[in-house]
C-alpha cells in the first residue's frame, strides 16, 4: 500500500461531504456497538452490586471508571486508523521500554512485578502491550503484500515475541497469553500459511515438557495441576475452583435470585467481584443468565467482526479483527477458568469484572474499532 492510495480515501480529499450527518456519525460512533457495550456495562454494575454485598460505594466507583473508559473510547474513536498506523513504531518502542522498566524499577504485588509508578499514578505497561502489539504487527504486515512471506512472518514473530516474553517474565502468564494472542490473530488474519500454523502447533506440543520443567513458575504449575485435580488441595489452591464450580452448579437453570447467592454472600466464593464474578452471575441468574450474557458477548463479537471485515484497508482489517478476537479470548479464558476448564490465570470478564485498567484498555480497543467503522462509512458515502 502506498501513501497516495490512502490519501484518496481521506474524507476531506474525497470532497463529497454528506448533507446531514447524524450525531453518531459526527461523533464517529457505531450506535449498535455502543448500545451493546452499554448494556454489557449495565449488566456488570448490576451483578457487581450483588457481588460486593450491596455496596453502593463499589458500584459508584466502578460506574466512574466506566464513564471515564467510555469517554476515552469516544476520544480514541476520533483518530483515523492512518494516524494510529503512523504512531505504531514509536508506540511499540515506548511500550517495550516501559516493559523493560517494569523489570528493573517496577512495583511488585503478590510476588510479581507488573506496575510502573508514574508520579503517584500506577500504570500497567502490559495493558499497553495488549494494544500496541496488534497495532505494530498490523502496521508491519499491511505495508506489504499479503499473505506475508516467510521473512515477514519471522519479523512478525520477533515483534510478538519481545513484549510477550517481557510480560511473561513479570511474571504474568495470563496477560502474556492475551498479548501473544493479539499478535497471532493479526498474523492469522493476514493469511499466515497453514503449513506454518500446523508446524507451530507441533513445535509447541514438543516444547510443552521443557516449558513445564524450566519455564513455568511453581505457582503456575500448581494452578495447572489444581485445574486438573482441584480436590487435591481443597483448602489451598483448589478452594477457589471448587467453590466457583459449586456456585455455578448450584445456580441451576433459574438461579437463586439476585442478591440471594449463598456461595458469594457467605464469602465462600473468592474474588467474587473481580475475576470470579461470572460465578456470582451463574449462581444468582442460573444458566438463563449465563446464556443471555453469552448472547450479548456473541452480538458484540459479531458486530466487531463485521466492522473489521468492512474496512477498506488491510491495516484496519487486521487490527480490527485482532481487537475483537482478543476480546473473545478474554471472555473464553475467564469463563473457562472460573468453570474449571482452564487454569486460573487472572483474566477479568470484560466490562463485568471490577477494575479500571483492563476496562480502559478494552474500551480503547473498541474506540479504535469505532474509528475504523466511522472511516468506512465515510468511504461509502
Amino acid at each position: 500500500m502506498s501513501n497516495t492510495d490512502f490519501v484518496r480515501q481521506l474524507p476531506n480529499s474525497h470532497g463529497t461531504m454528506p448533507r446531514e450527518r447524524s450525531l453518531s456519525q459526527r461523533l464517529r460512533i457505531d450506535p449498535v456497538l455502543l448500545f451493546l457495550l452499554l448494556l454489557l456495562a449495565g449488566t456488570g454494575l448490576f451483578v457487581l452490586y450483588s457481588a460486593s454485598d450491596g455496596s453502593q460505594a463499589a458500584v459508584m466507583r466502578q460506574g466512574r471508571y466506566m464513564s471515564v473508559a467510555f469517554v476515552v473510547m469516544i476520544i480514541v474513536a476520533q483518530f483515523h486508523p492512518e494516524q494510529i498506523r503512523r504512531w505504531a513504531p514509536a508506540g511499540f518502542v515506548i511500550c517495550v521500554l516501559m516493559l523493560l522498566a517494569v523489570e528493573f524499577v517496577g512495583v511488585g504485588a503478590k510476588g510479581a512485578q507488573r506496575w510502573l509508578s508514574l508520579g503517584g499514578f500506577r500504570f500497567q505497561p502490559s495493558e499497553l502491550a495488549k494494544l500496541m502489539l496488534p497495532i505494530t504487527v498490523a502496521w508491519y504486515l499491511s505495508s506489504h503484500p499479503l499473505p506475508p512471506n516467510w521473512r515477514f512472518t519471522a519479523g512478525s514473530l520477533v515483534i510478538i515475541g519481545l513484549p510477550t516474553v517481557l510480560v511473561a517474565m513479570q511474571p504474568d502468564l495470563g496477560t502474556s497469553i492475551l498479548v501473544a494472542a493479539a499478535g497471532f490473530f493479526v498474523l492469522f488474519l493476514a493469511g499466515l500459511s497453514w503449513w506454518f500454523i500446523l508446524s507451530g502447533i507441533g513445535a509447541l506440543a514438543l516444547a510443552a515438557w521443557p516449558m513445564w520443567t524450566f519455564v513455568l513458575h511453581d505457582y503456575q504449575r500448581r494452578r495447572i495441576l489444581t485445574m486438573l485435580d482441584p480436590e487435591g488441595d481443597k483448602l489451598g489452591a483448589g478452594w477457589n475452583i471448587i467453590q466457583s464450580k459449586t456456585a455455578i452448579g448450584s445456580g441451576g437453570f433459574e438461579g437463586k435470585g439476585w442478591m440471594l447467592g449463598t456461595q458469594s454472600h457467605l464469602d465462600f466464593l473468592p474474588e467474587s467481584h473481580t475475576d470470579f464474578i461470572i460465578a456470582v452471575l451463574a449462581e444468582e441468574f442460573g444458566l438463563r443468565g449465563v446464556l443471555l450474557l453469552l448472547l450479548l458477548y456473541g452480538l458484540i463479537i459479531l458486530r466487531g467482526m463485521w466492522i473489521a471485515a468492512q474496512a477498506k484497508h488491510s491495516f484496519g482489517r487486521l487490527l480490527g479483527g485482532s481487537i475483537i478476537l482478543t476480546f473473545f479470548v478474554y471472555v473464553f479464558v475467564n469463563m473457562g477458568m472460573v468453570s474449571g476448564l482452564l487454569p486460573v490465570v487472572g483474566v477479568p470478564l470484560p466490562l463485568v469484572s471490577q477494575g479500571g485498567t483492563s476496562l480502559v484498555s478494552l474500551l480503547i480497543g473498541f474506540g479504535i474499532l469505532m474509528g475504523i467503522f466511522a472511516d468506512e462509512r465515510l468511504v461509502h458515502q
Partner: protein
Amino acid sequence: MPRRQQLKNTQRERRQYKRRMIYCLLFVSALIGVIVYRYSHLQLIDYDIYKTQSDRNRIQLLPLPPKRGLIFDRNGELLAENIPSYTLTLTRERIKSLDDTLAAIAEIIALDESDVEQFERRLRHRRPYQGIPLKFRLTEEEIAKLAVNSYRLPGVEVDAQLVRHYPKGELFAHLLGYVGRISEKELEVIDPVNYSGTDFIGKIGIEKYYEDLLHGIVGYQNAESNAHGRILRVLEQHDPLPGGDIQLHVDSQVQEVAFSAMAGRRGAVVAIDPRSGGVIAMVSTPSYDTNQFVNGISSKDYQALSGDRNLPLFNRALQGQYPPASTVKPIWGLAGLYYGVVSPNTRFVDPGWFSLPNDERRYRDWKVGGHGYSINLEQAVEQSCDVYYYELAYRLGIDRLHDFGVRFGLGNATGIDTTNERRGLMPSREWKENVYGGHWYPGETINIGIGQGFMLTTPLQLAVATSVLASQGELRAPRLLAAVDGQPVQAPLLGKIEDVSQADWNAVRASMEAVIYGQRGTARGLQRGLEYTLAAKTGTAQVVSIAADEKYDAEALAIAKRDHALFIAFAPAEKPEIAVAVVIENGEHGGSVAGPVARAVIDAYLLGDTSAKALKMSREDSDE
C-alpha cells in the same frame, strides 16, 4: 528496494481476509459451544451435586457438647466444676503460614515457649479442621487485643468453653482423678458422634471410671455459617443432654483432716463406712494439683512431678502394696477360732522366738525376750505377739490361711469404682507353683502369720478387710459413688461370712478393743479423751528382711529402709460406722505414728471434731 516490485492485490487480500475471518468465526462459535456445554453440564446435569454441596457449605451441623456432670461430696460440697475459660485456637487448615501467624500473635499477646511447644505437639495429633488451642485462660485484655486484630489473623479465634476445675486441688487429686484433652489413642475408642463437640475426657480416677455418666449426650444445631466458619443464623437446634451430677460418699471435712494429719508424709489413709461400703475418705500423700493436667501440663512441671522421689503421682491408696504386717492378726485369730485350731483360752508359750520342728532357724518376736509363758488370743492381739501367730499359722497351714484371707478380700481387687486398683497378694501353694515353680515351705507359712513374707495389701484392701471385721462378715465392694442426680446407688455385697459364730466375732473384737484399752495395748496411747469405743490393730511392716539373729536398729538404717507404720481401726466398736486403714511409709511405729492419724479421721467423722487433737496429744507424748 529490489526491482521486483510486489504489488498489493487488494481484492485478493480482501477475499483471503474474509476466508480467514470465517475460520475465526467458526473457531469462536466452537469455543462458545464449549463454554455453553460446560455451564449447561454444571448447571443442569450436575445441579443436584452442586446444590447439595452448596447447602453443605452453607449449613453446618454443629455438635453442641454436653455440660459435664458436677461432682459433690456427701454434704453437697463441690469437688469438680466447670468454669468458663477463653482459649486462643488456631485452625491449621485456614492458615497459610503458621510461622507468620504465630509471630503476629506474639506481637499482640505474650506467648511462652512452652505454649508454642505444646501447641506444636497438639498440632500433630489433631482432627482435620479442628481448632488447636495455643493459649489457655486468656485475660479480658488479651481477648480485646485479639479481637481488634482478628481481621488480619484468619484461622485464629478466641474460643469460649467450659473447662473442668477442681476447687480442692491436691486434696482430692488421687480420688477424683482428672480430665484431659482427648488423645489420639482415646479417639479410636470413643464414640466419635457423642464426642464430636467434646475436647476433654476422663483420664484417671472417678473422672475416667464414670466418664459415660459424667459426659452426657451430644446435641447439635444446624447453623448457617460463612466461609470463615462464623455462624450467622441457627436453623434448627437439638439440645445436648448434660452429664449426670454425681454425689460421692466422701466427706471433704474428713478427707481434709486425713490429708493434713498425714502432714506430707508418704502414705495413704482410707476410711470406709462398713454398713454401706461407701468411701468416707481416701487420701494418698504427697499429692499434686490436678488442675494443671486439665489443659496439658508443661513438660517441665511434669518432669518435676514425675521425678519427685516422694512419688506424688503414685496413688498409694490403690496401688501401694505393703505387707499388712500385724494388722492381719485379728483375721488370723478369727481363722484359728473358726477352724478350731485354737479357742479363746488356748495359750502358747512365747520365749521370744519360735522354731519349726526339726529346724534350727529361729523366728524372732519383735519384743526381745517375748511376751511371757501364757499368751492367749486376746493378749496376742493386744500386745501383737508374733510367736503366738507363728504357732497359730503353723497349725493352720497355708491353705486355710489363704482361703480365710480371701474371704476378707485379701489378694483380690476390691472392685472399687475407680481406675488402676492393684490386687495385692494373698499367697497360696498354687500361686507359688505358678510364679516360682517351687514347693511351699513351712517357713513361708510362719511369715504369713505376721503378715510378712509374700503377703501384700493395698491400703484400700486393708480398709475393706477392717470393714469386714467391723460388720462381722459383710464383704462389700467399696463405693465412691453415692448418688446420681439425687438417685442413691447401692454398693454390691460381694460376700457374707455367715459360718463364723458370734462368740468368735466378739472375741476378736474384744481383742482389738484391748489394743486401745488393755494395759499393754500397743495403741493404748490413743484412749485418752476417747468419746466412743475404738477397736484397732497396729502394724509395723519390715521393708528390708532382717537376718534371723540380727537386731533391728532404726537409727542405723537409711530412712527409705525403715519400717512402714500401719494401723487399722473401726468405731464405735459395738456398732461400727467407720473402718479406717492408715499406712505411713517408713513411719516405723504403727501405734504412735499411724494410730493418731486414724483417730483424727474417726474423730472428724463421728464427732465432727476436725481439730485432730489425737495428733497433738501424740506429739505432746513424744515431747515428754
